[in-house]
Structures are given as structure tokens and as C-alpha cells.
């Protein structure tokens, strides 16, 4: 790994503002995007692998592959929409600059996940249960998402217009990302499961699962609920 890539990754973590300036310069965009992809694969891949250590076996490889895939798939679907939103709200950003900005943000989040990986691994090794693992990983995703937000905010501006663009982008990204991850589950895998599938059968959407879980939480169960309740992240 050459010094330039390491320098860019260091800049991703330390200086979101200069990363946001870099995406506007075509000369800097290619190395930044390439380094971001590398960080995303390494960071999210490692975190995915660590999450699957409780289940072990082939699940580790699957999760190492699927977590970066979920993030990349979400970006592929969302970045054109981000560009359209930014332009519609009066912020002139090229599609290539938005790709750079979004990938840099995702890379920063992935590096934060990488930083969490040893602690999560320790917790899983100490016997943290399945549901505890889900909660812990959700917390890690939340914190890493907040770190990504700083890069996006630096690129889109911190004025009212920038905040409005960011809110609209979040409204697109959250359901898309959730559904992408839902389709690619399981990431953790139940220890008792005999076989580990790469993908679960298509049985519901993320929104269906949230709706059903909300009903279940207040004691309303149905036949449909049963199958959803067995679903796993």
C-alpha cells in the first residue's frame, strides 16, 4: 500500500473538510475514490467477518463479503438520487463529485467500524448472545454513520440548504440501505443453525419486518408474524 493511499485514509479520518474540497478537483478524484473503495472493503469486510465469529465457519467469509457489498449496492442506488437532490435544491455538484463525496463518507464509516472490530470481537468471544450482538452491531453502525455524516456535511455545506439536502439524502439512503442489508442477511448467523445460507430466501421487506416487529412488541401476533419473527439480521 503506497504512502499516498495511507495519506488519503489519514485525511479521511482527520480532515473531512479537505476531503470534501478534494472531490471537486478531477485530478484528485480518482485516487480518492480508489482509496475509499479500498478502505470500504477492508473496514466493512473486517467488521463483517468479526460479527460472524460467533457463528464461525463459512459465515465469516460470507459476512466479510456481504457487508461491503451491502454498502456499495446502497451507494450505487442512491448516489444518482443524491446528485439530483443537491442540484434540485440549488447546490451544483457533478455526479462524479457526489460519487467521491459519498464513497469517502462510506469509507470513513468503514474505518470507524474497523476501529470497533477488536472490541466487538472481544465481546463476542466473552459470550455475548445473539440479540446482544445485534444491539452492539447496531450501535457501531450508528456511530460510524455519524462519522460519515461529517464528510457529507462538509461537502454539501453547513447552511440551511446543506442541511435540507442532507435530510433529503438521508430519507433516500436509510430505507434503501436497510432494504439492501435486509436482502443480504444473515450477517451474524444463529449458532444453532445447521446450514449457513449465503442469502436467505426472499420472504419479506425491511418495512414489513419493522411493522411486524412493532405489532409483536405489543403482543399482537399473527400467522405471518411467525415467519417474520424468525427472521434474523
Amino acid at each position: 500500500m503506497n504512502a499516498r493511499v495511507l495519506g488519503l485514509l489519514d485525511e479521511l479520518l482527520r480532515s473531512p473538510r479537505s476531503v470534501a474540497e478534494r472531490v471537486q478537483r478531477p485530478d484528485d478524484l480518482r485516487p480518492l475514490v480508489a482509496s475509499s473503495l479500498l478502505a470500504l472493503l477492508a473496514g466493512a469486510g473486517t467488521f463483517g467477518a468479526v460479527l460472524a465469529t460467533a457463528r464461525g465457519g463459512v459465515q465469516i467469509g460470507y459476512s466479510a463479503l456481504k457487508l461491503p457489498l451491502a454498502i456499495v449496492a446502497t451507494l450505487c442506488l442512491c448516489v444518482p438520487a443524491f446528485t439530483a437532490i443537491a442540484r434540485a435544491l440549488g447546490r451544483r455538484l457533478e455526479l462524479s463529485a457526489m460519487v467521491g463525496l459519498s464513497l469517502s463518507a462510506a469509507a470513513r464509516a468503514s474505518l470507524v467500524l474497523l476501529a470497533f472490530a477488536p472490541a466487538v470481537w472481544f465481546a463476542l468471544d466473552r459470550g455475548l448472545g445473539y440479540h446482544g450482538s445485534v444491539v452492539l452491531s447496531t450501535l457501531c453502525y450508528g456511530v460510524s454513520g455519524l462519522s460519515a455524516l461529517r464528510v457529507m456535511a462538509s461537502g454539501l455545506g453547513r447552511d440551511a440548504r446543506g442541511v435540507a439536502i442532507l435530510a433529503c439524502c438521508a430519507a433516500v439512503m436509510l430505507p434503501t440501505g436497510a432494504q439492501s442489508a435486509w436482502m443480504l442477511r444473515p450477517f451474524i448467523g444463529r449458532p444453532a443453525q445447521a446450514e449457513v445460507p449465503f442469502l436467505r430466501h426472499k420472504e419479506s421487506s425491511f418495512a414489513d419486518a419493522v411493522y411486524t416487529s412493532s405489532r409483536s412488541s405489543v403482543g399482537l401476533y399473527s400467522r405471518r408474524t411467525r415467519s417474520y419473527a424468525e427472521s434474523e439480521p
Partner: protein
Amino acid sequence: MTLGDLLILYGAAGLASASVAYRTSPERGRSAISSAALDALLWPLWLPVALSARRRPAPRANTGDATRAAIWEAHEAVLGSPLEPLLPREAALRILGDVERAAVRYQELVGLLAQPHFSLAAAEARLEQLSREGASARGLAPARLHLENVRQLEELRRRDEQTLLELSELSTALRTQLVLARYSGGAPTDAGDIVSEVWARVEVLGSTLQPPLGSAQYPAHAPDQAHPAG
């Protein structure tokens, strides 16, 4: 549509994108091949980036022709009129000469900086590489000097480009101002200011110019002699 159908469509689009990325790549060889390979896999993200490298704005081909034409037409507009002292023949010729020399030098700088030996990125990478390899301060000094020289050349190119651009705008405004004054018969209120601005830019160009011996196509005059308007 099944997942398999989607993957086939994605792959087909990826192959088409890879072909576009390879054809439009500014370089050939390993860099273009790796760009095309990445594009085949991640075309929704990589294709805009690959195309942006191609769309990189080429350095403006400022030959100064439009500026010189505007200056000469401005001079002709006041020729034989009471406004002639504003832009006399000697002053116009002096400006034309300086603009031409600056435009030639700018073109030379653009050509020079496009060569790999004068690449700023390559000079920075070389210095980084030497630092990483643990070269001594003495060993790093030539690479630092080279980098600094390339930076200064780039700075000169930027300054010439900016000044020529400003001169172009000013000379266009001067031409319309003097033509307007000639036909309206009134006194050009802002023309004197514009002429002063033009001279200021010409002085900037002159401060970085080293005219080669015998290249004085136009007779040179001191600005204070050639610029009656002050």
C-alpha cells in the same frame, strides 16, 4: 425479473461501461486496464469518475489573437479623432507586442507542463518515494528542488493565463467603449480607466517576460511615453 436476470443486465452494462472507460481513458496501459476492470464491476460508481478524468478541462488555448484584434480595432476607432491620444499608434503597437510575446510564452509553458518530466504529480510522488525509502537530506535535495521548480513553472502558467484572460476582457470592453464614443460623439467616461487597467496587466506580463534578442517585432516604448492617458 429474477436476481439472475438483474445480474445479467448489470454485467452487460458493466462490460459496455468498461469499454467506454477504456476508450476514454487519457492514458493507456495498466492504468487504463485497471480502470476498465473496476468499471466492469462497479460501473454505477466508477464510470462518472472515469469520465470526469476525460472531461478534465484542457488548458485554455489563449493565443491572444482576440485581444490583439480588439486592441487594434479600438485604436482604429479613435484614429484621426480627438480621442486618438487615448490610444495612439505607438501605445497600441507596444501592447500588441507584449500580448503576443506573453501568449507565445504561455503556449510554451502549457506544452512544457504537459510533458511527464514536468509533471507536478510525478515530482511529488518521487519526493514521497525517496522519503519513504529513507533517503538522506542530501539525497532529497535535488528532488525537492525539481518539485519547487515545477511548482514555480505552474505558478507562472497560472498567472499568465489569468492575466491574458483579464486583458482579453478589458480589450473587448475598451473596443466597444471607444467605438461607442466615436459614433455617439460624446466623451468616453470610462475609457481612460480601462486603458489604465490594460496597461497595468501589460506591466504584469512584462514583469515576467524575458524577450529574446531581436524578437522586438514592434517598437518598444516606455509605458509613460506610450500612454498619454496616464
